[in-house]
């Protein structure tokens, strides 16, 4: 009764010895890695040699999935060679990109042994003790940062500076106020100047120049400018850059007193300017009188 049990126990032990051929540093499995220190992201060269008997074939299970968080398989190469003892050696050359920081052990893998018929004869999980030291790209050991300089304290205490600040601000405010008032006064006085009076003065001067021998066409040109300038200031219309028709339209809209006389003067001036009309001295003088009359009657602002 005891014999079959003993035999069974012996067979079980023999089977265990097959699967547990190598665990941490199994015989016939060599793992080398170079260089042993790299920067993060650099590549390391890993060589795995697997020795086997003549009637065996050997491979690494799911080699493509060898990548882990710390290593990324970049490329692989496999070669085989015969051993003088009669067996063979399978060499796997792997290129791995190293990530993570500090000492990183190479990822574990499983070696599969097969008989010449293809059936699996053994599976050996390997946890290589070869490791790579991965350094960070930046040197976290820098300790030469200068400490932040504390803010400088004012040489004068704030209590002493406060009156000076108030005085300067007050002075600036006062200057601005004076400037503002000055501007208002100037604007008000400018507004008080009646454009009619200015135009009358200019017309009187023009009359004296005409008497002094000014050619009538020039007189009309000047008259047109005086009238346009007056209309622009008095009625706030664009007259200096406008043509007579545009002025006519604007004045009509405003219902200006003496509209017909104004237009008649501007049209006469247009005839002289653009139609080669040659008025005589008398005509020019009459036009000047007419213009003075128009301006006098239009004294009351319409707007």
């Amino acid at each position, binding site marked *: 009764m005891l014999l079959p049990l003993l035999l069974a126990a012996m067979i079980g032990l023999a089977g265990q010895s097959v699967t547990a051929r190598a665990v941490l540093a199994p015989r016939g499995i060599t793992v080398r890695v170079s260089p042993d220190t790299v920067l993060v992201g650099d590549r390391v060269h890993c060589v795995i040699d697997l020795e086997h008997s003549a009637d065996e074939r050997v491979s690494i299970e799911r080699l493509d999935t060898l990548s882990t968080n710390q290593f990324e398989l970049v490329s692989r190469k496999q070669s085989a060679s015969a051993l003088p003892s009669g067996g063979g050696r399978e060499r796997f050359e792997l290129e791995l990109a190293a990530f993570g920081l500090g000492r990183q052990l190479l990822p574990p893998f499983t070696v599969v042994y097969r008989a010449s018929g293809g059936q699996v004869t053994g599976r050996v999980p390997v946890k290589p003790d070869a490791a790579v030291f991965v350094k960070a790209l930046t040197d976290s050991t820098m300790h030469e940062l200068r400490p932040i300089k504390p803010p400088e304290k004012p040489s004068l205490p704030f209590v002493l500076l406060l009156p000076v600040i108030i005085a300067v601000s007050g002075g600036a405010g006062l200057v601005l106020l004076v400037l503002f008032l000055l501007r208002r006064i100037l604007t008000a006085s400018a507004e008080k100047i009646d454009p009619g009076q200015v135009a009358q003065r200019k017309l009187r001067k023009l009359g004296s120049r005409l008497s002094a021998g000014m050619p009538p066409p020039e007189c009309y040109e000047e008259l047109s400018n005086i009238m346009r300038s007056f209309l622009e200031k008095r009625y706030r219309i664009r007259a200096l850059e406008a043509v007579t028709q*545009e002025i006519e339209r604007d004045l009509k809209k405003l219902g200006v007193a003496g509209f017909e006389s104004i237009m008649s003067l501007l049209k*006469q001036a247009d005839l002289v*300017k653009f139609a080669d009309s*040659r008025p005589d001295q008398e005509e020019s003088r009459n036009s000047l009188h007419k213009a003075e009359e128009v301006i006098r009657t239009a004294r009351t602002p319409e707007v």
Partner: protein
Amino acid sequence: MQYAAELEELGLQITEASRFLEKAQAELARRIVGQEEVIRRVFIAMLVNGHILLEGVPGLAKTLIIRTFAAAMNLKFQRIQFTPDMLPADLVGTMIYNPKEMEFSARKGPVFANVILADEINRSPAKVQSALLEAMQERQVTIGTQTFPLPEPFLVLATQNPIEHEGTYILPEAQVDRFMMKVLVDYPSYDEELEIMLQSASTEPKEPVMPVVQPNDIMKARTLIDRIYVDPRVQRYIVDLVVATRKPAQYGIAPLEAMIEYGASPRASIFLLLASKAHAFMQQRPYITPEDVKAIAYDTLRHRIRPGYEAEADNIRSDDIIRQILQHVPVP
């Protein structure tokens, strides 16, 4: 006060010679509701031998205006629909082989008419556009080895749709420049639309347009227009306006400098003067005033000014630029 004696005489002749315009305008008004400005521009172009580029959405009576105009003026009218597959020969004509006489003879194309409506000119390729624009400029057409003068008066009205750009060939600036005016045709007013609707919504045939003018009247008017007086002040004003499109800073409009990619060509000055003369003629005046110049400035300059990138970004069109220029260039 009157103007110089020679202008007085010219004024009387102009009043007499411009009567035909009133008759033609009255005849046009029988068929066309509104669009007075467009009609006035067509008359101006015809009076000074210019051509017009009409821009407006479809259905604004562009064709009707031109067809009626030609009929009232007793002129031969041709409408040419420009298409992408058109060839220059379809426009100007071609050499045809005559087997009886065993020789080639020229067959004149539709361009041989007094009034041409080049509908949707931007639908045809550049070579067809060039053929028409060359005919407009030279006023003659060469078919094979023979050169034929185009009939007088010769007026081209080209239309283009401002909205559709797909499948179109945009007219190059150099060719657009040959058009005396670019007229924008706008929608009619509410009342005009009402009148158009009542007038057109009928199956009865329309009364034919009566020819009320003889081509000779136009030729006579042209000789008088050439004699219209242009004061040196107005001459300078025209040049000032055109130069201001190129160097606005010189006229106190420095902000426009960045808005204009390029300004109007010297052709603009020529056409501005010619169109102003025609405008004065239509007002029965023997001299030009700045009013005449301002009246046609938009139509004469808008296609000759190219707004720059900044202007486009701010949605500033060439009309806005012209408005600024007219407001800032001092009127004599």
